[in-house]
């Protein structure tokens, strides 16, 4: 309450220390919530790994005490649910102890995935905006295209990803482009839907004003619709960047799983290396947080430069 009030009274003063305050303000909650999750995680590790451990012990004819049993469930080589410290050790080892160019380095794989994610996200955002612009301006597009765009999104990506990769390989396109296209396919939709809403969100009075100036469609677009759509755009872009990452990872599977977080996940599951899978998942999540946070920060900067009033 007090904080909100000071914000009202001193938006400038509040924003000066914003970064440091966010850093100071959210580290503790994040850490404590994470700590809670880790505890739950350990408990689940015992529950989920327990039955198999019991089978093992039975076959080996051992009857360990509770503490020993719990310890064993936390140190299986291929657990159903690896314990946090197992994942952490693996993650640490593969992130910091390997040369970043080595194909065992998670940094390397994350980078491979990130590059096609970013490319796909850029394409996807551009395409989504383009489609939204078309739909908002041409009734014929709104009526004819929209239903098919929706239908296109219900095509299970994993079913067509291999075909896309095959078709592109057949015409000699390999590498990052096919992967990026699958990211594009997944990311353009949230942007398109959000932007259609956003571009239609200006108040009628504001549109009327443009009307009185006999502003052209493009002037109304740039000077009114675009600024009004900004909150929708950034909310959509956060979803899109996450979808884009998922798309890039999916697309890594049919390319033979050579490099990328998807490849790590696949080879991990192929060899039942659950710890590797989890480490790769953690890497994917870290990349996701970074991407979503960057989009969020850009959004804040844009909104601030547009005279956004501190909440």
């Amino acid at each position, binding site marked *: 309450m007090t904080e909100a009030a000071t914000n009202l009274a001193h938006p400038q003063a509040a924003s000066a220390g914003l970064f440091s305050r966010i850093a100071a303000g959210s580290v503790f909650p994040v850490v404590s919530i994470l700590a809670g999750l880790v505890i739950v995680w350990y408990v689940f590790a015992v529950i989920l790994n327990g039955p198999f451990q019991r089978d093992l012990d039975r076959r080996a004819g051992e009857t360990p005490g509770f503490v020993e049993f719990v310890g064993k469930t936390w140190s299986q080589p291929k657990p159903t649910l690896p314990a946090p410290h197992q994942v952490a050790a693996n993650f640490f080892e593969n992130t910091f102890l390997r040369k970043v160019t080595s194909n065992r380095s998670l940094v390397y794989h994350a980078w491979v995935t990130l590059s096609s994610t970013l490319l796909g996200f850029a394409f996807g955002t551009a395409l989504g905006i383009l489609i939204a612009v078309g739909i908002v301006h041409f009734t014929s597009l709104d009526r004819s295209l929209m239903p098919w765009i929706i239908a296109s999104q219900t095509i299970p990506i994993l079913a067509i990803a291999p075909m896309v990769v095959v078709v592109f390989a057949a015409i000699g396109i390999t590498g990052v482009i096919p992967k990026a296209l699958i990211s594009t396919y997944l990311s353009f939709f949230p942007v398109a839907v959000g932007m259609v809403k956003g571009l239609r969100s200006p*108040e009628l*009075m*504001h549109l*009327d*004003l*443009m*009307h*009185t*100036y*006999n*502003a*052209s469609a493009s*002037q109304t677009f740039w*000077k*009114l619709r675009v*600024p009004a759509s*900004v909150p929708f755009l950034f909310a959509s872009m956060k979803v899109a960047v996450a979808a884009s990452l998922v798309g890039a990872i999916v697309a890594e599977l049919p390319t033979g799983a050579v490099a990328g977080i998807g490849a790590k996940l696949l080879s991990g599951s192929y060899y039942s290396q659950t710890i590797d899978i989890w480490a790769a998942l953690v890497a994917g999540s870290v990349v996701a947080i970074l991407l979503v946070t960057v989009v969020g920060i850009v959004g804040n900067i844009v909104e601030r430069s*547009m*005279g*956004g*009033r501190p909440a």
Partner: protein
Amino acid sequence: MEFLERASLQPAQQTVVEARKLGLTFQTGDGPVQALSDVDLTIKKGEFVSFIGPSGCGKTTFLRVIADLEKPTSGTISINGMTPEQARQARAYGYVFQAAALYPWRTIERNIALPLEIMGISGVDQKARIKRTMELVNLSGFEKKFPWQLSGGMQQRASIARALAFDADLLLMDEPFGALDEIVRDHLNEQLLELWKRTNKTICFVTHSIPEAVYLSTRIVVMSPRPGRVTDVIESTLPHERPLDIRESPEFLAIAARVRDGLRAGHSYD
């Protein structure tokens, strides 16, 4: 100034707005609302016409029809001999809305620049016009503020400045001075009269203040509600030259009394 020449070239009696049996009915979920009915009105070039009438009688709606923001459901209307749509496309008018309608993401200065940008006016010229109109409405010093950092009256003045910044021949003003105190209001009234006389603009002006209507207008249109229609049109017999103290003259008071009677009559229909 360029306006002087233009004014003298045109015959004073040219028709700017011509409404014949104009009617407009809104369809609402709750049944139709007849906002205008059988409105007949002719406005000549260079006139200053005030619209006065009880709240909800269709003043805003009538201005919106002239501005091609609303399509009449019966009757005809022409602007400068064109359809409202053609007139709008010719950027024939400037409109001050009843609410300020400033864009929250633009500073005051950029808000005033908006129509200038759209009409393709050069950067230098833009600057000059912004400065001039902001001075006119007493907002100098607030160029870089955002709308929410301004008081209600200041926002309204910014919206007036925005409409004045590009010199349209026809001005549609919907209660532009509603949120201003008497002193500023008097000042702006004088400024507006001055501008009008100098440039021979045609002005359609909605107000709730009887003295204001009488002081400014060459003609006062009194409207009454449900359905909105014109009940009286009062020609002002006041001279063109109007010092502020003309408002104490008996002639002025007589006109004001007639307007008040008209207004009261409108209310009795309620």
